[in-house]
C-alpha cells in the first residue's frame, strides 16, 4: 500500500490511486514533475498526465501494431484462431458502420474510426481489470510516485477523444452541407427561422452535449469502477474475515466489469458512428 508522508491511511491510499503522474509548469514558471495532488492542481492547464498519455498511446500502438501484423501475415486458408478473432473484430466494426452510418453518404474513414475507437477504448478499459495495486506498486518500487494505469478513468482522455469526435462532427457537417447549410441546421430548426435565437441556443447546446456526454459517460463508468475497486481493496487490510469478503466482492465486481468494459467501448463506438452519420445527413 502506498503511504502519504510515510503514514498508511485510507484517505492517503485513495488519494494516491487517484493522482496522475503529472508533468507541467509550476505557477513560478518552472517546468517539472508534480510531487503531490496539490502540485498538480497548481499547474492548471499547462500540465500533462504522463501516465495517462503513455498508457493511452502504448495501448493504442499495441492495438495498431497487433492488428497490422495480422493484416500482413493474413492467411487465406487455415487461419489461426487469433487471426479469426481479429478478423471478426474487423467485421464487427464494418457491420456496425453498415448498420448505423447513413447509407446516403460514402466515407471510408468511418469504419476505421469505429475499429480504432472500439479496440483502443476496450484496451484502455481492460486495464481496469488488472488488480489495482500491482502496477502502481511496481512503479513506486521503481521510484515513480504516481501511476494511474486506466487511461479512461482520466476525464482528459475520454473528453480528448470526444473532442476529436466533435471536431470531426463539425468538419463533416461543413464539408457535406457547406457552412451555410450547417448554420441553417443550427439556426432554423426546430421552430423555423422566426425563432432563430432560440433555435441557435437549443441546437448549439445539443451539439455541445454530444461530445460532453460521450466523454463523460465513459469517464463516469470507468472512474466509478476504479473507485469501487479501490474501496474494496481497502478491506484487505481490515482483518481476515472482512478481507475475505472483500476478495469475493472484488471478484464479483471484476466479473461485472467483464460486461461493462466492452459495453462502454461499444457505446462509445456506436455513438461516434451515429454522431458522424448525423453530420452527413441533410435535413
Amino acid at each position, binding site marked *: 500500500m502506498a503511504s502519504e508522508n510515510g503514514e498508511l491511511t485510507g484517505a492517503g491510499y485513495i488519494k494516491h490511486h*487517484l493522482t496522475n503522474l503529472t508533468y507541467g509548469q509550476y505557477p513560478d514558471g518552472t517546468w517539472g514533475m508534480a510531487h503531490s495532488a496539490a502540485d498538480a492542481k497548481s499547474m492548471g492547464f499547462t*500540465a500533462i*498526465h504522463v501516465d495517462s498519455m503513455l498508457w*493511452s498511446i502504448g495501448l*493504442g500502438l499495441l492495438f495498431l501494431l497487433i492488428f497490422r501484423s495480422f493484416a500482413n501475415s493474413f492467411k487465406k486458408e487455415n487461419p489461426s484462431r487469433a487471426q479469426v478473432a481479429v478478423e471478426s473484430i474487423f467485421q464487427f466494426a464494418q457491420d456496425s458502420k453498415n448498420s448505423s452510418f447513413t447509407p446516403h453518404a460514402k466515407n471510408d474513414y468511418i469504419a476505421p474510426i469505429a475499429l*480504432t475507437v472500439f479496440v483502443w477504448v476496450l484496451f484502455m478499459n481492460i486495464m481496469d481489470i488488472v488488480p489495482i495495486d500491482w502496477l502502481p506498486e511496481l512503479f513506486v518500487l521503481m521510484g515513480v510516485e504516481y501511476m494511474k494505469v486506466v487511461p479512461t478513468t482520466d476525464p*482528459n482522455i475520454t473528453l480528448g477523444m470526444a473532442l476529436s469526435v466533435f471536431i470531426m462532427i463539425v468538419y463533416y457537417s461543413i464539408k457535406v452541407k457547406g457552412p451555410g447549410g450547417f448554420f441553417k441546421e443550427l439556426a432554423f430548426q426546430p421552430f423555423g427561422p422566426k425563432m432563430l435565437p432560440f433555435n441557435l441556443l437549443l441546437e448549439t447546446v445539443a451539439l455541445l452535449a454530444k461530445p460532453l456526454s460521450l466523454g463523460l459517460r465513459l469517464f463516469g463508468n470507468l472512474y466509478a469502477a476504479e473507485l469501487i475497486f479501490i474501496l474494496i481493496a481497502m478491506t484487505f487490510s481490515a482483518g481476515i474475515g472482512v478481507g475475505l469478503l472483500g476478495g469475493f466482492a472484488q471478484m464479483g465486481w471484476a466479473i461485472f466489469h467483464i460486461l461493462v468494459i466492452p459495453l462502454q467501448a461499444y457505446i462509445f463506438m456506436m455513438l461516434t458512428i451515429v454522431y458522424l452519420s448525423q453530420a452527413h445527413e441533410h435535413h
Partner: protein
Amino acid sequence: MNINLTLIGQSITFFLFVWFCKKFVWPPMMGAMEARQKEIADGLAAAEQGQKAQEVAEKEAAELVAQAKTQAAEIIASAEKRGNTVVEEAQETATSEKARILDSAQSEVEQQVFAAREELRGQVSSIAVAAASKIAEKEIDESAHAALIDDLVQQLKAS
C-alpha cells in the same frame, strides 16, 4: 482530476491513430478478407455449376442407356422374326421337295408297270396264237383266219 494539456494530447493522438488505422491497418486486412470472400463465393458458384453439369450428364447417360435398351430389344425381336422365317422357308422347301421326289418316283413306277404289262400282253398274244395254231393246225387256213387272229390280238391289247 484536472483538465489540462492531456486533453489536447489525447485528441491529437486520436487523430494520428485513426489516420494510421485508415492508412495501414484497415485496407490490407479488409482487402484480404474480401478477396477470400470472393474466392469462396466463386468456389461455391463453380461447385454449383459442376453439380448442374453432372445432373445434365447423368440425365443424358440415362437417356442413352434407355435408347440402347430399346434398340437391343428391337434387334432381338427382328432376329427372332428372321429366324422364324428361315425355319419356315426351310420347312416349305423340304415339303415341296418331298412332294416332287414322291411324284417322280410314282410316275417311274407307273411307267415300269405299264411297260411290264405291254410285254406281258405281247407274250400272252403270241402264246395264244401259238396255242391256237397248234389246236387248229390242219383245219385252219392260216391266211384265211389271219384277220380273226389279229382281231383277237387287238382285243387282248385293248383289255
